[in-house]
């Protein structure tokens, strides 16, 4: 890199190079010339949809080594035309957020802390508890003898941020189990 001299000051460069408004060579450096967009060196690009509000802006998700490296608006989308709002533009950080939790964690009754738990073990525990709660609060008939065949032991909240297919399996399983207390953001 060249030695720093007053002649290298941007203002001086603007005056001496004829690029008076600083929109041309005066503000370029070899470093920026050598930069390549992450989207160019990406391994692949997947078509996606923004996960925030319900406008459903088209996204292009660029990946490298099984990591998301950049998310941009998709100009092909007829309704979003390549645009993303601050949330959509920040969605790469939703994927790679420093605060993201990727471990299964468990808090025991009355405990003051989280502990790690094997995912499969957790699944077994949840399946056991599901069946037990279902039994504990099963209501076959109401007080007038009419069939209810439902349980109040299990409830669920959420669905507006997960996929249609996921909602479908959740509703199907809950209904078959007689678990009627299933709700999502649409009622809020």
């Amino acid at each position, binding site marked *: 890199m060249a030695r720093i001299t007053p002649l290298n000051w941007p203002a001086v460069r603007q005056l001496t190079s004829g690029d008076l408004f600083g929109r041309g060579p005066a503000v370029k450096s070899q470093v920026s010339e050598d930069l390549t967009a992450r989207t160019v060196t990406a391994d692949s690009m*997947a078509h996606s949809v923004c996960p925030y509000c319900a406008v459903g802006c088209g996204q292009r998700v660029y990946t490298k080594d099984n990591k998301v490296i950049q998310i941009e608006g998709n100009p092909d989308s007829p309704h979003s035309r390549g645009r993303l709002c601050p949330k*959509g533009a920040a969605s790469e950080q939703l994927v790679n957020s420093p605060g993201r939790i990727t*471990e299964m*964690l468990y808090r025991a009754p009355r405990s003051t802390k989280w502990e790690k738990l094997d995912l499969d073990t957790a699944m077994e525990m*949840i399946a056991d508890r599901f069946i037990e709660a279902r039994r504990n609060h099963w209501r076959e008939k109401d007080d007038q003898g009419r069939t209810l065949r439902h349980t109040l032991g299990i*409830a669920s909240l959420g669905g507006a941020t997960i996929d*249609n297919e996921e*909602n479908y399996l959740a509703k199907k*399983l809950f209904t078959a189990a007689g678990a009627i*207390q299933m709700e999502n953001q649409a009622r809020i």
Partner: protein
Amino acid sequence: MANADCIVIQGSNMAEAHPVGFQWVAEAKARGARVIHVDPRFTRTSALADKHVPIRAGSDIVLLGAIINYIITNELWFKEYVTAYTNAAQLISEDFRDTEDLDGLFSGYDPETGSYDPSSWQYDDSGERDETLQHPRTVFQILKRHYARYTPELVEETCGISKDDFEYLAKSLTDNSGRERTSCFVYAVGWTQHSIGTQFIRTASIIQLLLGNMGRPGGGIMAMRGHATIQGSTDIPTLFHILPGYIAMPTAGKHDTYEEYVKAVGNKDQKGFWANGETYLINLMKAWWGDAATKENNWAFDYLPKLSGAHGTYQTTMAMLEDKVDGYFILGQNPAVGSANGRMQRMALSHLKWLVVRDFSMIETATFWKDSQEIATGELKTEEIDTEVFFMPAANHTEKAGSFTQTQRMVQWRDQAVTPPGDCTSELEFFHKLGLMIKERLKDSTDPRDKPIQDLTWDYSVDEHGEPDAEDVLREINGYHLSGEKKGQNLNAFGEMQADGSTAGGCWIYAGVMADGVNQARRRKPGQEQDEMALEWGWAWPANRRILYNRASADPEGRPWSERKKLVWWDEEQGKWTGYDVPDFPPTLAPSHRAEPGETGVKGLSGNDPFIMQADGKGWLFAPKGMVDGPMPTHYEPPESHVGNPLYPIQSSPTRVLFSREDNLYAPHVREAGNDVYPYVFTTYRLTEHHTAGGMSRFLPYLSELQPELFCEVSPELAEEAGLVNGEWATIISPRSAIEARVMVTRRVKPLQVLGRTIHQIGIPYHWAQGDEAVVSGDSANDLLGLTLDDNVQIQDSKHNAAAIRPGRRPRGEDLLDLIDKYRADAGITVDTGMVQLDRSFVQPENPLQAEQTVVDGSNRGRATISAGRKSGGDDSEKGSGAMTESSGSTGGDSDESKSSKHTKETNAAPKGSEGPTASSSGSTSGDTEKRKDR
């Protein structure tokens, strides 16, 4: 929307909450459209509109009802459209009585249950129509009478909107509607979150039908929904009251037999496509239970659980508090922050045996046991909370394939970009595995209750990581042939569904999303290569139609109303409907066709019945069914209102769902003592940089940096009155809680003159929460909210609330509870406050507008004294008022004094025959308490 000539945005801040969608409002404006924003606050939407009209929160029906009156009185309705396509000409039963006849009630009200029997709202048995619209029992005449008192004067008095602004709004709409022009409405939760929110939307529907703006380009009512697939999760519902495709869940006592149930799902005696409801149901049952669903066993009707009432999210929260619920799954939602009455939510979590939270970050719902407000106040102790908590990290939108349905019913597929890290899994994998495990555990059970699980179809292909193939699930949602020549092939449309068990389909309105074996939601033909309908991008239900009821875009003869607004039309030569959009009508049903009397279902539709899902094929100006609180919208005040209902002696909606509980206390409304303890209105809203309860935004450094801190917006006038300083702290107190926020003094909120009184509104964004895990934290605005629900939809009334505000930070720990209690005591609040379902406490004076001001102004302080004996601790309320002056700093002295002087003046001016405040108070102690509706 780009095709609209006028856009009215009301109950939505589209530019900030749906910025990218808003480009089409900007586009319309660039093409010459007029844009009007009606909202309590001036926002970026207002900045880009031609005009901002500030409104008092909760008064929307008065404004919209006055527009209806304006349209009718000035004969500005679209006559051909209205006569041909709406039920305007229909005669209504002789038994029907309007709110104008019954002092604010429609006929059929049962004070015991707090609900209506709608049988008197039905069409006259004769089925007669009067095309001249002159018969007094026609819908048109009933509508005209109903809104006759909704005048510009009433709007000015009640909404705080000047006559000029009203004229501008009404004229903009009527000038921009008709054959050549169309207008559209945009709303969001600013309309839905009211005890009469559903009726706000109905009022707009009436306007749009009268002006002929439904089913046409640039017309309609646009719901701006707030989550990526909140539409999809309503269509394929994770909601208690429906099954996929809006099929009602059966309810014990109403649908005990299959026949009763089928009638409710789709009465075969009606016109239109809902007459085929049983077919849709059978296909769902076949998709879920396969061979176990047969004609003989009523397609496994017994396998469906039956409801025993409302099981909405808030009713379930209350069941948790009674230890009736053991386990709770949270899927990408954060009720500790995002639901109303946050304290009740968190207390409920502490009663669970186990809680499964599936999210990306450690949201507050997962950590309530260690860092919630209730730990700080000492109400909960970590070491005493028995709830087991499973935090399961979730895969995000790039780590799984699947579809979202956006706000205009368009289903869009996402491809998987990467595999999820660590223990992160998709909900698809989670529920698939959980289902397999439950089935395995119950496979040998002989208990009949386990049969629906044993027989449940659950065979989805899985990849090497254990992830089910989402397209396989979408195929089941779409539907397929079970037998015959096409066995195994996908359905191409819901019209292919059979009622004999030869086809199956999990959600009938999504039939066609996998037409021809192709994932239509994955179509991505660039917009640049298509016309503006862009029919080859994604897929919209039903049948890829982009504008619903678009038959109405053509005149009764099938010709476009105008060249400018051409969309679909009848092609006489080909003998079918054609156009730019997929026609939302039977493709070969000629405009001239008239169904034989007595014909039902699709065959019952005539060529001029565009509203093919309605029981009569017409748009409903008057709704004989479907709404539980009345066939026409009518104005009631919000539960915590500071003014009396200027129209009726009934203050608030007589069907609102009330919860009279210690943990859901309400501020007294204007006709009860203590209303002035919480003298201001606050309304909550969203910011561009955050997303609802913050689970997907407060944990991201970028977004947290952009909007780091909770603030409240107040007008300079309120700042002066309450002693608030820009940039300093304020504490906002409601009967439920108190929060602190930075003060933003801004002209964006304007005090409004309503019924002779100044109404100050405070705006509070609701994205923050107490907790240690997010990048930024703060108090949660939803803690302030109470729970009163709209009985149509069980949604809470969170957009109008009463509060007090004072300078400075809130107290910490237990002292916070003392502060909340102190204000409650000052107002004399008990669990009964505001809990009178049919509150007739007010004796209506002869001239409602003029006299209302009198009583309202004069009564605030006066009534506190008069009705003191009625309330427990009533005497204290006067003392409390004094104490209030101290605690609320500069709020006290001035306003008390001004009210006293008004009181004197107004009492003198009270109309003859009315005893003013005294009369109203004594009224409230006697016969008004009909019945509370606790659910």
